[in-house]
């Protein structure tokens, strides 16, 4: 393992495994001088390089009054550029029409943490950014008061101007900008934040996306769109098997193509590969097409290495054996499962399989790097620009401050673009071309063949019911390769943060619970995929809850609510979850009342309990993730074994709302991504190679496969701005799949235990 590539951001240092505490790949330096007895840090405080609330970092006001908000979080479709600007503009008292957004480069020393993952941009930065806006507003008021010779308490900033009621004087923000920004930033504790009743933008539905005009006219710049003078274009032939390398190369035919400039070998990655390029052979040409044509002409023999035999079908058997065997690491143990199960009136068992997935953002990985005068500059669609900067500097042998990473728009991310391997490839190739700007593009085939895949897993569930059908014993065995395998010699056990994604922190009103994690080796790169380990955990737990309901002869929703139990607040630590999404369990306990409320809302939204015609059924699932509560109720129709999902009701309680329209759009998108996972999406492997190539074989939903009706329901106190926010980007996804498969059972009496459904229902 490298020096400290992962900082433990888990609380209290209670980490098993290898000490990776979070999604966050905090490649920063450990914080100096932290005493061991120091109070634990949570949330934004625990993130590498923390947070900033200095208005001079985030806000610039020009003489004409134009306000530029610098967005330090990356835009990948969640609407963060709009939402962050809304927060700042609202506290600033700015007129939205006079607000523009700039994108920050990777510089965590300046901006604080910039890793855009884990559904936490607003959860962590809402308050600091409110303070930045409020501080700038205060400075504008101070500048005006000084100019007019009145007390600052007599003036008020709002609507892009500062007014003095006594004299009727007013000055625009532009007129005050220079004087205001010369003032000292007021003390944090002295700031008066707006009362939520005064919000104009936060929590309202009236603001359009800041990039709307550019997106609808083709004027946007994604990583793949960057153009530099004298730029060359490259694609890379990578080892088809993870850990493989070039055995022999004949590049003569490629070099004979007019417009192909160079063929460059990239060293193979060593285990653990972390964010290193996989190696292989690059073709550099005058345009992308010629680079691809050159790559097609390469004659390469590969040495496949240790994963040459990886076969996902036989690996499913391996995982199944592990999940069906005792002796796995015990990760949760309450009551006495064995004794309760042996005394049960009825036992139920089920095994669930979830395949590998590729994030497949519509924009594949792509980046431009150029090197001039010992300085490298990158333009890239990255979720983690600071990590990109550090790894690029390391790979190019440059100091950190000689590397600049500009962040473009991301054409989707879903976790793939939190790994900067593709930017390093562009850097290596620029260096090989004496610093000329090189655009490195991944083709879709590259993306499907060489991903950081969502893990594959078998979840074995067992339960005992008493004579009344109540669950009295619950056992969950989870076997899946870990993301930790890219950071260290494969620990073969799930890390605490993976277990804390919907397994250990699932509220269950069951007295005897046991959870085990047998070992599982990784044979491909494992990475984050939107909502990560919540996907298999939610599928297994919520499917099993429905199976138990069926075994007990009970309504699925009623039984789920009974499993969730009475309204109470649970400290996740008591269930073995030491991570809690990095948040303080006192501030963010698991609240079963909120869980039950979203289940009820989703059910009501689909008119749960109505009579269904032949071939149709309703299913429901609820899941807690990213400190938000989401439930989904789905209606399916099964005709000749083909499944469609005409209608979905999704309910979320994510605390207070910043940008309700974007919460809605994230839920809509999560439903559709989940429909894909349920019905069609998977990557399989044979002889170590990904079997699927492109969107003709890696299937994701299209318009005609998307639900015709998706109703999004907001639950809870959406104006509780004094309470912590929940995540939005990821928590919509996990309950979608089990809601659909539970509905399939209602429609057909056939239980789906293996994803995707594909043709399982066709006879």
């Amino acid at each position, binding site marked *: 393992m490298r020096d400290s590539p992962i900082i433990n951001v888990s609380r209290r240092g209670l980490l098993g495994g290898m000490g990776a505490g979070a999604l966050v790949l905090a490649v920063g330096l450990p914080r100096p001088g932290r005493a061991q007895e120091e109070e634990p840090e949570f949330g934004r405080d625990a993130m590498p390089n923390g947070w900033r609330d200095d208005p001079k970092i985030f806000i610039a006001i020009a003489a004409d009054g134009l306000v530029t908000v610098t967005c330090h979080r990356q835009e990948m479709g969640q609407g963060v550029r709009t939402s962050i600007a809304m927060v700042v503009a609202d506290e600033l008292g700015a007129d939205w029409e006079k607000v523009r957004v700039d994108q920050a480069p990777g510089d965590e020393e300046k901006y604080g943490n910039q890793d855009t993952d884990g559904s936490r941009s607003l959860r962590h930065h809402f308050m600091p950014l409110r303070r930045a806006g409020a501080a700038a507003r205060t400075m504008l008021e101070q500048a005006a008061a000084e100019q007019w010779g009145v007390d600052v308490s007599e003036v008020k900033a709002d609507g892009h101007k500062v007014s003095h009621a006594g004299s009727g004087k007013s000055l625009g923000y532009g007129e005050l900008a220079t004087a205001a920004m010369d003032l000292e930033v007021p003390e944090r504790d002295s700031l008066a934040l707006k009362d939520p009743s005064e919000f104009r933008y936060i929590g309202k539905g009236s603001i359009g996306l800041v990039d709307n005009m550019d997106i609808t*006219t083709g004027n946007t710049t994604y990583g793949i769109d960057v153009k530099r003078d004298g730029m060359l274009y490259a694609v890379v032939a990578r080892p088809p098997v993870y850990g493989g390398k070039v055995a022999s190369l004949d590049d003569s035919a490629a070099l004979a193509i007019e417009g192909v400039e160079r063929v460059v070998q990239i060293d193979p990655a060593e285990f653990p590969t972390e964010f290193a390029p996989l190696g292989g052979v690059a073709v550099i040409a005058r345009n992308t097409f010629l680079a691809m044509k050159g790559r097609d002409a390469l004659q390469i023999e590969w040495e496949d290495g240790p994963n040459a035999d990886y076969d996902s079908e036989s690996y499913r058997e391996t995982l199944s054996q592990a999940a069906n065997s005792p002796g796995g690491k015990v990760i949760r143990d309450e009551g006495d499962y064995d004794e309760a199960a042996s005394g049960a009136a009825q036992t139920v068992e089920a095994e669930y399989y979830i395949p590998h997935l590729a994030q497949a953002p519509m924009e594949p990985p792509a980046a431009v790097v150029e090197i001039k005068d010992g300085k490298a500059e990158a333009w890239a669609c990255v979720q983690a620009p600071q990590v990109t900067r550090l790894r690029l500097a390391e790979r190019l042998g440059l100091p950190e401050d000689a590397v600049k990473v500009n962040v473009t728009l991301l054409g989707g991310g879903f976790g793939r673009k939190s790994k900067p391997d593709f930017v390093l490839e562009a850097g290596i190739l620029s260096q090989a071309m004496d610093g000329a700007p090189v655009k490195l593009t991944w083709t879709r085939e590259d993306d499907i063949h060489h991903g950081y895949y969502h893990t594959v897993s078998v979840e074995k569930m067992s339960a005992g019911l008493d004579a009344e059908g109540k669950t009295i014993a619950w056992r969950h065995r989870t076997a899946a390769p870990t993301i930790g395998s890219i950071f260290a010699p494969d620990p073969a056990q799930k890390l605490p943060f993976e277990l804390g994604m919907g397994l250990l922190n699932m509220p269950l009103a069951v007295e005897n619970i046991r959870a085990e994690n047998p070992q599982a080796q990784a044979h491909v790169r494992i990475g984050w995929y939107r909502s990560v380990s919540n996907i298999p955990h939610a599928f297994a737990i919520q499917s099993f809850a429905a199976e138990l309901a069926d075994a007990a002869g009970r309504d699925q929703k009623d039984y789920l609510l009974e499993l969730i139990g009475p309204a109470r607040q649970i400290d996740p630590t008591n269930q073995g979850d030491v991570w809690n999404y990095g948040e303080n369990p006192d501030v963010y306990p698991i609240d079963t009342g909120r869980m039950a409320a979203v289940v009820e809302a989703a059910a009501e939204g689909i008119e749960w309990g109505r009579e269904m015609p032949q071939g149709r059924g309703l299913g429901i699932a609820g899941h807690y993730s990213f400190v938000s509560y989401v439930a989904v109720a789905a209606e399916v129709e099964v005709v000749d074994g083909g499944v469609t999902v005409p209608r979905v009701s999704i309910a979320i309680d994510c605390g207070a709302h910043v940008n309700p329209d974007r919460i809605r759009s994230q839920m809509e998108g999560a439903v559709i991504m989940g429909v894909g996972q349920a019905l069609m999406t998977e990557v399989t492997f044979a002889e170590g190679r990904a079997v699927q190539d492109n*969107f003709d074989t890696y299937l994701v939903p299209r318009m005609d496969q998307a639900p015709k009706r998706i109703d999004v329901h907001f639950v809870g106190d959406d104006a509780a701005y004094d309470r912590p926010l929940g995540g939005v980007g990821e928590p919509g996804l996990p309950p979608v799949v089990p809601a659909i498969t539970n509905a399939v059972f209602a429609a057909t009496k056939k239980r789906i235990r293996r994803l995707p459904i594909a043709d399982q229902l066709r006879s």
Partner: protein
Amino acid sequence: MVTLVINGEERRFDGDQDTPLLWVLRDEMGLTGSKYGCGIAACGACTVHIDGAPSFACITPVGVLEGAEVTTIEGLSESGNHPVQEAWRELNVAQCGYCQAGQIMQAAALVDQYDTVTDDDIDAVMSANLCRCGTYPRIRAAVKQAASAKAAKSGNQEAEAQ
């Protein structure tokens, strides 16, 4: 050498005539609004109009386009005011936005060609275009809204003509 009209302007390309139009637009003409998503006509991110018809630029060799008129997202309207573009903004259709140029070009051809647009039409036509963010419900709504806006506009024009 091929000569074609791109967004109303005559352009020449004398490179490899097998080069797909997409890469000519993006790498040679500086028109990056049309996107790469698959290269095999499976995702629609590259959709442009060739002589008015929605087409996959990623599989169309530029050499076959002698004299053709190509319209890309950059040239769809004077000021981004095609009814489809307006509807896309009003409904905040986009999430990441990457596929939306292709979606808009596909939808614009549909709305321009037909006076009414049904759900079945939308399923049939718009299923050529993938979106990983899952903006389909809003695309559906925006296509309908644009079709209505166009109908209302042409209704007004007819009324004025009378």
